[in-house]
């Protein structure tokens, strides 16, 4: 790491001194305050969490070292297993839908039209707005009797739904909110990808008589694939740990039908105050997110290979 050589000026002199007349200054003083803060609020909590996860640690009673007992509890905890299922379903839908809609939106915003900047600002409002405030309004919109959504359904002749008030529809309803909220982020990332595409392929495709769909399918889509992966990755990380919207609208209900790992972690740690077990969930949860991210990276590498024509 280059940072290490900076701390020992003597070594730096031996390595690279002759090329420059002045010694490259050490920038450590600039970094130290932030390093202290990061150690205190990010590194320390992590190490402490790992330590706590190895203990029976409940508020108000003495702590005892129990080794991996907290971790062994997890697979036999039906509520945790159920929460994993909910999390996977919620995440899969909350990655796919924004990816589809975000890509379409990006194609539209890539065109030039008056008021584009302002409308882009309006379009990203859902993801910048305070989640709890949004959740509150969605809760009112989901209301089975007075909500505006059932009224809109009735306009197109569809029967009224129970939305977040029924176990079968609660997760899709929450995904609707999540999609509405986070499609703009996918749009922004893909828009960056579109801006980087040269015009020549389109010009020659047009000469060859390609249609709009063909150009999108065979030129645009392959070229923005890396950006779609980045967007998918970020979306996955955010959707997995989604909390505000679910907590404010359903608190994991009805029953435990929308309880994701993050919601369950909250209950274990701050309702039952079982901090040791909660820490174990936090560690496993983190590893799960890392594993999912690694899986997506792996997928990306494989598609790269097939694009190049590898596979050998």
């Amino acid at each position, binding site marked *: 790491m280059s940072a290490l050589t900076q701390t020992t000026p003597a070594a730096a002199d031996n390595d690279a001194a002759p090329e420059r007349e002045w010694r490259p200054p050490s920038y450590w003083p600039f970094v130290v305050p932030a390093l202290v803060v990061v150690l205190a*609020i990010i590194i320390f909590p992590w190490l402490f969490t790992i330590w706590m996860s190895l203990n029976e640690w409940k508020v108000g009673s003495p702590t005892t070292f129990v080794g991996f007992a907290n971790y062994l509890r997890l697979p036999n905890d039906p509520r945790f297993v159920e929460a994993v299922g909910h999390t996977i379903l919620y995440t899969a839908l909350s990655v796919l839908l924004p990816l589809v809609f975000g890509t379409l939106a990006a194609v539209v915003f890539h065109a030039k039209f008056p008021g584009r900047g302002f409308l882009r600002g309006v379009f990203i409002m859902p993801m910048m707005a305070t989640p709890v405030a949004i959740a509150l309004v969605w809760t009112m919109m989901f209301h089975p009797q007075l909500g505006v959504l059932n009224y809109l359904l009735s306009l197109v002749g569809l029967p009224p739904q129970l939305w977040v008030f029924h176990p079968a529809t609660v997760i899709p309803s929450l995904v609707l909110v999540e999609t509405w909220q986070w499609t*703009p*982020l996918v749009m922004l*990332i893909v828009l960056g990808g579109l801006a980087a595409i040269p015009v020549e392929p389109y010009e020659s495709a047009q000469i060859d008589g390609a249609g709009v769909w063909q150009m999108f399918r065979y030129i645009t889509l392959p070229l923005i694939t890396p950006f779609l992966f980045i967007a998918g990755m970020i979306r996955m990380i955010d959707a997995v740990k989604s909390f505000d919207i679910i907590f404010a609208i359903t608190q994991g209900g009805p029953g435990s039908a929308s309880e994701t790992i993050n919601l369950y972690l909250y209950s274990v740690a701050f309702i039952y105050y079982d901090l040791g077990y909660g820490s174990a969930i936090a560690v496993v949860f983190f590893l799960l997110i890392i594993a999912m991210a690694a899986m997506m990276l792996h997928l990306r590498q494989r598609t790269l290979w097939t694009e190049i024509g590898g596979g050998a």
Partner: protein
Amino acid sequence: MSARQILGKVGLWFAVFVIVSPAILFFLWMASLSLKFEVDNAAYPPVFIPEHFAWKNYADVLASNRFLTYFVNSLIVTGSATLLAMLVGVPAGYGIARMAAHKSAIVILIARITPGLSYLIPLFLLFQWLGLLGTLLPQIIIHLVVTVPIVIWIMIGYFETTPLELEEAALIDGATRWQVFRHVALPIARPGLAVAFILAVIFSWNNFVFGIVLAGRETRTLPVAVYNMISFDQLSWGPLAAAALIVTFPVLLLTVFAQRQIVAGLTAGAVKGG
């Protein structure tokens, strides 16, 4: 203009309308809910624009002195957490960019991936042990988890793109590293400072999960206060929607007016807090 071009224009505007309408209609509906008396909010079919506007909803929310307390709390927590983050994060971003210590960014990534709740368990114990619960200090400190990584991440990106020549010349002329940073690097990076500041403010202002655990009756921030209103007076939608709109209005205003900076920051780092 040929018929084809006109058709294309109409098609484009139609597409733009379809894409932007979910956002516009939602916030219009939010405003409508907040400006209606209970009779209109309970009406079926729903009333979009009422005959009489219930400005009273806003007056009621603002007049309750608790709301003012929570507003001040939010202002203190977000303000302190953002300023502290700028104070330590901007020089850090500069140092990391100049040392090309790219591996240190892994810590930022870990912070980005970690669910906010995982920080809460150990820090909650720490704050309890230090006897800080019941003050605003725990929330200010834990909001740094959101603001510091954002600021560092964005500033690394900015300082990496600013030219080195000026800085090297100043160093040869005998300026200290601090002077170079203060008088050469910082002025050039001013757009980056704006981006980092705006995003840190928004994500700290919006944060909910830290407050729900750490805030007591007197130390609630606005998102927590609004959430608590849901559970208490569920029946009156008007004042609730008004409170929600007041909480998120500063952010919406910032989003529309600083959309260029926000877009730059989000696409550069794609960071989000919490």
